[in-house]
């Protein structure tokens, strides 16, 4: 079962939100290899989106190799383990960069951050 949290007020284009939601589900293994995705029209009706938007999401996911479209049988999830690991790393790296930017803008130094990280990691 796909879960979506689409924010119409967000400036992030809706197609990117949907794409992220699907890739996240694939990476978290909530969508497994070979799972069937809803048809373009079904998803458009559920999310109240333009079918062209959903088609764009599926097309771009297919280009990137997350899903596979088969004539007459809709779209299926296609995931390779190595690729997922790379992707997970790139996501966490992205988040971490954002965190560092924020910390530096608040005036923390490298040493402060190292200290903080060490403390948090040893506490766990």
């Amino acid at each position, binding site marked *: 079962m796909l879960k979506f949290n689409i924010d*119409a007020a967000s400036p992030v*284009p*809706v197609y990117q939100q949907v794409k992220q939601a699907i890739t996240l589900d694939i990476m978290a293994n909530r969508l497994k290899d070979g799972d069937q995705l809803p048809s373009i029209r079904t998803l458009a009706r559920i999310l109240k*989106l333009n079918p062209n*938007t959903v088609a764009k999401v599926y097309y771009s996911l297919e280009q990137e190799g997350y899903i596979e479209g088969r004539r007459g049988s809709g779209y299926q999830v296609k995931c390779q383990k190595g690729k997922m690991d790379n992707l997970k790393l790139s996501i966490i790296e992205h988040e971490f960069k954002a965190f560092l930017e924020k910390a530096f803008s608040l005036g923390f130094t490298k040493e402060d951050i190292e200290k903080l990280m060490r403390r948090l990691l040893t506490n766990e």
Partner: protein
Amino acid sequence: MSKDIITIHGLSLAFGGKKILDNLDTRFEKGKTVLIAGNNGAGKSSFLKCLAGVLFPDAGEIRLDASVPREKIAFISDRMSLFENFTLAQGIAFHCRVFNVKKDDFDRSLLCKLKLDMDQKIKDLSIGERAVYQFSLLMAQKPEILLLDEIIHNIDPYLRELLLEALIGLIDELNTSVIMVNHTFSEMGRLPERVLIMENGRFVFDETSDEMHAKIKKIVTEKEIADDIPVIFENRTPLYREYYVYPYSEGMGAGSGYEFLDVDLTGIVKSFIGGYYAKKRI
């Protein structure tokens, strides 16, 4: 690249010396959903009426793709004009005959939800019922071009959702080009792929939904901002001032310390209209 279904050149229209549409040039692509917004009296409805062939422009031309038959263009005006003395059943029969629709193809599912009596007269319908009734008539045409003028405002939230789903089905099934005029964006907000904003009979904003948020930003500050930043609307409160910036480009105001905030669709439209009224006062 999909092909253009409507091409417009130099479209102008005036009523009693007042310019309603001012030398408009634009194109509409097949299968795209377009939203037209703008202040009251900006010319949105007149523009739609010209597209529908209800109003004849004073100058310019509207060229339709030759493959679209006339009966595949569907239009709801803001007045929702129908033959008042027809019963609902007669209205459906009439519409089917004029637009070449087989009576059996008429989809009554939306009307059934309203539990309408088919023998009552059109003039006795409430505004919301009338909107749903007219939308059902248009759906039966299986339109390739659908022109909607503010129909959702009168409809209750439940039927609005059904209507929206019917519209989505239509876009998917027939690749219908939808051009709609709207003031509320909550429900319809994710449908449009392109947004046009009108002011004084001209288009002042024409962007795709994916890119528009990158083009318009907001600065919230307590002070005046630098002159070289293009501000379209300024909102002053006792605590802070909001400046809406358009067109925004990457690196603008570098070193000034301004934070450029994101604006949602309602905010974008409001800032343009607010800017228009502010100019008007002077």
